[in-house]
């Protein structure tokens, strides 16, 4: 990064709605400086939000989680090259709404909340999404379902998800029905 880029970054940051918390400002700056240049739809804050939500959905446990599998990059790719415009706009509006609700609930953007705050808010969103499914008639997919689906799809079709989590073998070499569950390789990636 050269000096001109750094200046542009600072001025862009300064143009954001005033956030009095210097730590938060510093974090934003850090997001911008460390964001992978591959991202083309998500801005650094949106990317940090997607990364945080994905990690709450599929965290690192005894196996790596959504962050290690770079689910955020997959979501950015889909938003850029795959998702219809309307759905992309809905997704980005969903991210903004998540922040608005985070501010209402715990006074900060989603990414700046603690784990318990974030989980509590996501449970609220999930309940709403599941309730909507019970209701008749077509309705746009709720944001929580969209990001959960994209997170799961991106994770289980990543090399980490397929190999380390599901023990996927490219060439099983044999077909053995009725094997004990523990001995088997996982289901294929993809759908």
């Amino acid at each position, binding site marked *: 990064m050269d000096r001109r880029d750094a200046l542009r970054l600072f001025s862009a940051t300064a143009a954001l709605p005033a956030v009095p918390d210097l730590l938060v400002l510093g974090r934003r700056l850090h997001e911008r400086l460390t964001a992978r240049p591959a991202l083309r739809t998500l801005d650094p804050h949106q990317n940090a939000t997607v990364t945080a939500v994905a990690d709450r959905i599929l*965290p690192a446990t005894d196996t790596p989680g959504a962050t290690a599998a770079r689910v955020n990059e997959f979501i950015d790719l889909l938003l850029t090259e795959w998702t219809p415009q309307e759905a992309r706009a809905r997704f980005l509006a969903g991210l903004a709404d998540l922040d608005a609700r985070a501010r209402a609930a715990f006074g900060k953007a989603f990414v700046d909340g603690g784990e318990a705050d974030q989980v509590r808010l996501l449970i609220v969103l999930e309940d709403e999404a*599941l309730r909507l499914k019970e209701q008749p008639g077509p309705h746009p997919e709720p944001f929580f*379902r969209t990001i959960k689906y994209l997170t799961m799809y991106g994770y289980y079709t990543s090399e980490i998800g397929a190999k380390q989590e599901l023990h996927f073998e490219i*060439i099983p070499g044999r077909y053995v029905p009725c094997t004990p569950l523990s001995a088997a390789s996982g289901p294929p990636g993809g759908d």
Partner: protein
Amino acid sequence: MAKVYDAIVVGSGMTGGWAAKELTEHGLDTLVLEAGRPITPAVDYVEHVPVWEKRFRGLRDRNAQLANQPIQRECYACDEWSSKFFVDDHENPYTTEPDAPFLWLRGRQVGGRSIMWGRQVYRWSDLDFEANLRDGIAVDWPIRYADLAPWYDHVEEFVGISGEPLGLPQLPDGKFLPPMELNCVERVVREALAKRFGRERVLTIGRVAILTQNHLGRAACHYCGNCERGCVTLSYFNSINSTLPAAQRTGKLTLRPYSVARSLMYDKKRTRVTGVRVVDAQTKHDIEFHGRIIFLCASTLESARLLLLSATPELPNGLANSSGQVGRNLMDHVMGGGARGRIDGNLDKTDTGRRPNGIYVPRFRNLRDGPKSPFLRGYGYQGGGDREHWGRGVDQAGFGADFKRAMRDPGPWHFSLYGFGECLPNHDNYAELDKTKTDAYGIPVLKINCRFGENERAILTDASIAAAEMLAAAGAHDINPFVENNPPGKTIHEMGTARMGRDPKTSVLNGWNQAWDIPNLFITDGACMASSACQNPSITYMALTARAADHAVELLKRREL
């Protein structure tokens, strides 16, 4: 003077490969013309490219498909790996009436659609060959099972079919390699059906052109599960893996890719075809090739199109069309009546390996001696048992560490029955030339007029009800019967546009797949079919091709062509 080949075969797919093999092995100097590009297995086969190496991880390049393959994308196999084996819809257009969609799903390359085919293999029986005669529909087949049985044997021994013999008259057994195994839940359903329906409704493992042991230099299946993407071990049958190499070994084969057939050349005095005019797909130049006999193996619709394109001032309706039946009687199996349900138990069991095959339930309606249904003909089921994977979690409550742990294991078992039904031949279902439109090579395209009728709809409804009944008998829960509304073409079993028959006035081909009007012209792809039965058709096309090739060689020897 231009070279005259003993034989020209148009098409290098399922039947073109067989024509090439049989004709060259009989010593004929044979030219195979293929419209598409060559395929190099080491480069083009992609079955072991894992999902994480694909840009869209199996979700396909949506925008590219919408732009270039808006029709081909309707096929399950036209995915991020195999879409290259399907045509560009803009280069290869066709037209339909707006209210009568037809999906023409096509592959143009050496090997044709044999690369992506479903590999299911079921013989016909006389229940099928006698059906038109019995019902007074269309025309009677000029052959019976006994005519084709030795040719089924012949092709099956080469192809390598794994399957279980059942001794059922409506689904003759073949030359089988050991069958693949049923999984836990499929065994449960098989036993329950046997208890409830006896020999009436039988569940067996799919009969499939995939090797369960090494066979004629090709290796047994390694269960990667992605046959539609090719197979570097040559474990499933396609013409690149099997028939074309056999033809090559004779030293008699000339295979010419990028050769788009434009028309057949015809000598009206001798009533013989003399060759094929092609457009070279790379240079766009016209070239003529000459041959003593011609086999059309270009696919049901392309072979009919070629006959129509070959019209002359004396034969304005096209070649081999004195009956007016070229392009008529277009059929495709009707599919998608069935049911799915959950089968409890066996939660500690799963499968190792990905079996590229499911189960089959042979036709049980309107058998020769059984009760009669309120529709004609019948259907069979494909399907099988499977466990839910992580995808179930999207609509379940939960996220986080415990949720992730729960998704690691598969969910409950389910069992599906998915019906494939017979389509009746119908004169009003037809393809004709649309002279207002041309393809990328300037060749007039087809307009396809095809609709399923009452009988096809009744078959799907019955298939759905009977499937639910069978799942109930197997103790399934949450049984979900369904009737899909798929347009014709989607099953990719199109056939019938140059039918065989007993009378030159009402059929295009005689009992040897030989054009009534033009003795040195043979059509052995799906165009030749006088009815559709409900079985997957490829093995019947292969057997008919081998039989016709043998006959053509006999006629050549007797100097009758």
